[in-house]
């Protein structure tokens, strides 16, 4: 019986079988890159707000401390969002004719809250607590980036589980002295690992990787 396929198809079939492995691996790799990409994690994407509130102006130019507005960040799981009265503390006199502040004045007049759009948000099955991090030497910038350079707030980290775990496995890489937690200028020193190890013993920081730490 005559050969249906030419001899060269042997090579072809081998290449396709072999190639399929690469194609599958390639697709998996692409998916992997995609789910970690800013498109999915919203990392570095500024969030549009009803009032173009600028941390760059208020924190960097005016030197207002985070805790003036995010009052509960040291004592509670929730960092706290400033009520309209907090804005009015200053804007009762400043920029009173500015059109960008119209929603703030409307809110103060009608008692309806300003609806800020969430920037950082974890799924409901994850438990997160600001107070423990802030009180054990994890600074705002470690998780939220250079907030003082953001005209509009954006996510600075993926907030994925690997990100949390990277630090929880070895907090020494990131912890800083307690008086620097709110500092926007602190940079890790050259000997961060050693300095971090010292702080870890000093502040009794544990490496918490048990699932029930965050899923409870």
């Amino acid at each position, binding site marked *: 019986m005559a050969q249906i396929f030419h001899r060269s198809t042997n090579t072809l079939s081998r290449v396709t079988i072999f190639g399929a492995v690469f194609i599958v691996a390639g697709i998996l790799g692409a998916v992997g890159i995609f789910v970690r990409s800013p498109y999915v994690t919203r990392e570095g994407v500024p969030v549009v707000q009803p009032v173009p509130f600028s941390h760059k102006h208020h924190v960097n130019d*005016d030197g207002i401390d985070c*805790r003036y507005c995010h009052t509960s960040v040291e004592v509670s799981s929730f960092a706290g969002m400033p009520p309209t009265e907090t804005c009015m503390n200053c804007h009762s006199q400043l920029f009173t004719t500015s059109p960008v502040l119209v929603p703030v004045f409307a809110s103060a007049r009608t008692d309806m809250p300003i609806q800020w759009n969430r920037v950082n948000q974890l799924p409901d099955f994850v438990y997160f607590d600001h107070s423990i991090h802030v009180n054990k030497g994890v600074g705002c910038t470690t998780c939220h980036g250079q907030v003082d350079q953001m005209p509009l707030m954006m996510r600075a980290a993926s907030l994925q589980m690997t990100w949390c775990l990277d630090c929880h496995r070895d907090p020494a890489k990131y912890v800083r002295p307690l008086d620097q937690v709110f500092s926007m200028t602190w940079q890790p020193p050259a000997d961060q690992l050693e300095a971090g190890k010292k702080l870890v013993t000093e502040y009794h920081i544990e490496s918490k990787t048990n699932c029930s730490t965050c899923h409870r």
Partner: protein
Amino acid sequence: MLRRDQRRATSDEQRGKDSFSFFILCSSFVLVAFLVAACNSSGSLQIMGEQPRYDPYEASNFYANGMSARPVISDTVTFMQPLTNTLLYEGTVDGELATTFPFAITDAVMQRGQQRYNIYCAPCHGALGNGQGVVAQRGFCCPANFHSDRLRAAPVGHFFDVVTYGFGRMPSYGQVIPARDRWAIIAYVRALQLSQHATLDDVPPDQKNKLGNTTP
């Protein structure tokens, strides 16, 4: 009356029927599971990442102002706040402005006061308490200069009253700063006042030689 082998035949038949209905039962469970999964993707059932509970400050259309949390009713006091302790919570003794602090002013209290002052007061009153904070420089009219004879002579209870309830153009901070912290801040304001009004007589004798030869 059934004979023994007859009876066994019946129960065999029965068992066959039983296992058939067991099969039906199982498959209907599987079917329901599939239906549930199908519904889930259309959002009609609970999704773990978005659970039927409110995050802090999450929007709700149940109340007219769109908030899930209820506002604090005015004149609400802290749980278990001893209403008789007017010194600590009102800064008054027998209806008169207090002239003493409700607790001993230690170094730790002073440190706390300095930190809280720099968060909540320095934006307007300035780090020195001279009324020249950044916000004042941006045009917020006239935060008080603490270094006047009137304010040096004012009882601490007056400061407590100003911080708690506001004063003229100054907003109130009673809702934001816990009572003990307000007292700590006032202790620090007293220290600021001293720092800008010290005379040579305030310097301990053994420290005087450190001041150099510029003594008038």
